[in-house]
Structure formats: C-alpha cells, structure tokens
C-alpha cells in the first residue's frame, strides 16, 4: 500500500488491544515457562532454587520422555496418513460423480465441527469392551478387545477418533486441488489410451503434491496439538503411558504430577517444535512445492 493516513498516535491505539492480550496471556506465560524450566520447585510452591539446565537434562535422560516422543510420532503419522489416504480416495470419487456432489460433500464434512473430546467419546462407546457393538463384533471374530488394558488397542482407538474428525478437512482441500487440475491434460492422456488409474498416478497425483504437502504439515500440527481432547476424554494417556503424547505429558506432569520444573522444560521443548513447524509451514507453503 503506497498511500497512508498521516496520523501518528492512532495506529498505536488500534494495536493496543491485541498487544495487551498478547503480552498478558501469551508472552508473559511463555516467559514464565522458560524461567520455570531453569528452577526446581517443591510441590507446595513455597520455595524454588535455580538448577540451570538440570530439568532439561532430566527429561532427556528419562526413558518415559522418549516413550512419549515415540507415542507422539506413531500417533501423528498414523492420523496424518490414514486421514489423508481416506480423504483422497473419497475426494477422487466425489470429483468423478456429477449427481449429488454437494449432498455428498455436506454429509462428509460435518465431523469437522465435532470437538475432539466428543469424537473420542463417540468412538469409545462403539469400542467399549463390555457393551460396544464393534468390540462385541470383534469378539465374535476372535479379537479380544479391551482398550483399557491393551496399549496397542488404546492407540488404535485414539487414532480412529482423531482421524474420523480430520477426514472432512483433508477431503475439502483435496477436492479443491482435484478441481484445479487442468481438464485438457487428463483428456489428452485419455485419448492416448491411459486408463483412469494410470491417469491418476502419473498426472493427477503429482499435480496434487502442493496440496498433499500442505495437508501433511497441517495434519501433523493437528495431531500434535489439537488432539489433547481425544486422548484426555478416552484413554487419559493410558493404559500405562501407551497413549501419552508429548502435549498430554506436559499437562499431566504439570497439573496432576505437580512437577512444574519438568513440565515447564517440556513446554519449552514443545515451543521450539511449534516454532520449527510454523517456519516450515510458512517457508515452504509460501514458496509452494510446485512443478
């Protein structure tokens, strides 16, 4: 913009509300987390002493922390992969049909609006070991389902719940991506005798790569940070620590375990992680992965 208003004080006034909120509720807590990460506090909050990098050394020597990193990675990549694969399949199908496209879209996108915690509860009841229809059906085919005792099954349950909610988002972006693929390219390939499957893998899928990459980043961020509700409402990180992701551990160590120093150090690690993801998102999506 080359033309501006000449007022000198007004812009500060306009920025004031956002900056005040940002300082009080974002920067101050962040600063406190960073400070706390270098202190050891007793459980009653009465005294604390400076311990330098001890909290960081502790978490990186704690095998449980590596478990939670592993859990986070398995969980996030499963959600991202499953959600994107199913959504891509549905989007390709929806792109083909002529009749009822809007109706299909409406009926597929509404789970976006369901809170993660509620998604967790809805799937919990389906898989409840004593009364859930899916769990009982699994029993008849020989699978003993109990996600309260079996860590792998607990993981499957939270992955399904988190994926269910995310398919709608991926579906919309894939559909938009598919509609942007030039028809002439596909027609040319069809005239040359390429089958629908070949056209998809050789032309459409490569052209979708910017969308795919963008969705990968968004899905990982979603699985990292927005799925707290799914885990807290269904498994609470359990059984044991088999579904305790890094974000869940920050909450659990801070509020339940009252180990504030360790929780703060974990917060700082997570802040670094979000920072990297944000930069990746901006860097690469601004530039676009394009052919």
């Amino acid at each position, binding site marked *: *913009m080359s033309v*501006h*208003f000449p007022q000198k004080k*007004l*812009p*500060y006034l*306009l*920025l004031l509300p*956002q*900056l005040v*909120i*940002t300082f009080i*509720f*974002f*920067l101050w*807590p*962040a600063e*406190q987390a960073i400070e*706390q990460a270098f202190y050891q506090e007793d459980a009653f909050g009465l005294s604390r002493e400076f311990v330098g990098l001890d909290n960081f050394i502790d978490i990186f020597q704690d095998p449980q922390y590596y478990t939670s990193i592993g859990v986070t990675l398995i969980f996030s990549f499963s959600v991202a992969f499953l959600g994107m694969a199913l959504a891509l399949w*549905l989007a390709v*199908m929806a792109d*083909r049909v002529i009749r*009822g496209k809007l109706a*299909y*879209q409406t*009926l*597929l*996108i*509404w*789970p*976006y*609006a*369901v*809170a*993660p915690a*509620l998604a967790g*509860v*809805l799937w919990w*009841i*389906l898989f409840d070991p004593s*009364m859930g*229809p899916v769990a009982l059906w699994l029993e008849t085919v020989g699978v003993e389902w109990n996600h309260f005792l079996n860590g792998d099954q607990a993981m499957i349950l939270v992955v399904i719940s988190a994926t*269910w909610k995310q398919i709608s*988002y991926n579906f919309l972006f894939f559909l938009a991506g598919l509609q942007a693929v030039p028809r002439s390219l*596909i027609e040319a390939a*069809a005239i040359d005798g390429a089958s*629908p499957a070949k056209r998809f893998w050789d032309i459409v899928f490569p052209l979708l790569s910017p969308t795919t990459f*963008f969705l990968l980043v*968004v899905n990982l961020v979603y699985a990292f*940070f927005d799925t707290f*509700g799914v885990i*807290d409402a269904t498994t609470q990180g359990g059984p044991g620590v088999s579904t305790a992701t890094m*974000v869940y551990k*920050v*909450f659990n160590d801070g*509020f339940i375990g009252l180990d504030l120093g360790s929780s703060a150090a974990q*917060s700082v690690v*997570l*802040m670094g992680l*979000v920072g990297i993801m944000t930069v990746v998102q901006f860097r690469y999506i601004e530039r676009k992965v394009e052919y």
Partner: protein
Amino acid sequence: MIENRPWLTAISHLSLLLGIAMVALPVWVALVASTHPTEAFGSGEIPLWFGDQAIQNWGAVLFAKAGNGIDVPVWSMMLNSLVMALGITIGKIAISILSAYAIVFFRFPFRGTAFWVIFITLMLPVEVRIVPTYEVVANLDMLNSYSGLVLPLIASATATFLFRQCFMTVPGELVEAARIDGAGPIRFFFDILMPLSRTNIAALFVIMFIYGWNQYLWPLIVTTDDAYYTLVMSIKRMLSVEQGDVEWNQVMVTTLLAMLPPVLVVVGMQKLFVKGLVDAEK
C-alpha cells in the same frame, strides 16, 4: 467426465455412500443409545434400535440436570458455551481487524516489531503454555469467570494475517479519494473498509465460532464451578464418575447436544465455512 465408464461411476457412488455411513456410524449409535433407560447398558450390549425413553432422557438432561455428578442442566452449560464461543469469536475479529488496519494503512515506528509480536502467538498454542497461563489467570483472579474463559484465547495471528492480506488488496486510490473527500481514518474504516470485508468477516466468524465452541482443555482447568462449565468440557466431568456407574444414555444426549450447534453452523453456512477454512490456512 472424460469418458463413460458406468462401472467406475457405480464404484464412486458406492465408495462415497460407504464413507458417509462410516462417518455417521458413531452418531447413529449415540442417537440410539440416548433413547434407552440406564438399565439397558448394564445388560452387556448397547441396543441397536431405538428405545422408548427418548423424551424422558432428553428432557431430563436438557432441563433438569445433566446427571453423572453435574447438577446444572444442559441448557445452562449451553449458554456458557455460547457466551464463550461468541466472546472468543467477536473478540478475535475485533482486535485482529483493528491491528491489521493499523499495520496496513499507517506508517509508524515499531510497525515491524508489532507485526512480529503478533506473529509469535502462532507458536504458542494454549496446550503448550498451559501451566503458566493458568497461573497468570489465577493471579488476575479470573478463574471461574467468563473473562477467564475468553481472554486468554482471543489473540489470533491467523485472523490478523487474513485481514492484512485482504486490506492489502484495497487500491491506494480509494484511500486517496477518501482523504480528498475529507474522510478521516475512522470514517474510512467504518464506511469503506468494513463493507468491503463483510464476507471475510462472516467466513472467519464461522471458523472461529467452531473453534471457540469446541474449546476443551482451557475451560476444563479454569472452571471448577458448575455454573461456568461449558458443554464440551462437561463430558469429561461426566465420564470421571466411577467406572461402571457412567449413565451412558445421559452422556450420549449431552454429547449430541454439544456437537449440534457447530454442526448446524457448518451445514447451514457451508459456503462461508469452506471459504473461511481455505482463507484461514493461507
């Protein structure tokens, strides 16, 4: 359609119908479960067809009390959710539109700094700064209050960026013309800029409303008083009663009622929703 392949078209429709069925399955079971008396769940299997307790269950949960240890009815928690969701939505839009206006239409010292301070909030989702934010809010004496529920969530870099993007497309001639005609910055903002950004505001409103309504972790830790419970987080409290004593029919009614408003918003304002989703992620 490039060529006519009836089999492939049939498969497409079939896949989509299957997808829809899978997506709807849990809601179907929840709906059925919400119509049975509590005893039905002790017998070892959720009934697969509707019971006859629909009116009693839904009526009790909505107007008497939500059950499972929560003494307030769902409608009062719904009101809290609505206050929180609207507070977050309107707050976010208001402060973002003002700061985007300042950043795009004025030149002043520390403009870049202000922009970066706002950008940093992107890197601090509430889940990451949860413990210290709780302490700050406790120090400010805002636990169990609407301001405590709303304020810590309303700074939004995304909304600021979106409005910045949209304001930057406003031609400079428009500003010049307004200035020649004697319109000051305030008049320009209300009479020219606001009408121009109407659809953007509406689209963002839809997305932010869903975001606000679905908040879970934050209300869970700042409210300990039934009177401030929001609907989504109340599910957690309902499920924390002793295992086996969970009254599933009431939990399911509450779950369905908690997801109803945002789902209606998405279905009813689908165009705005899709636009908001695409804009917000740019």
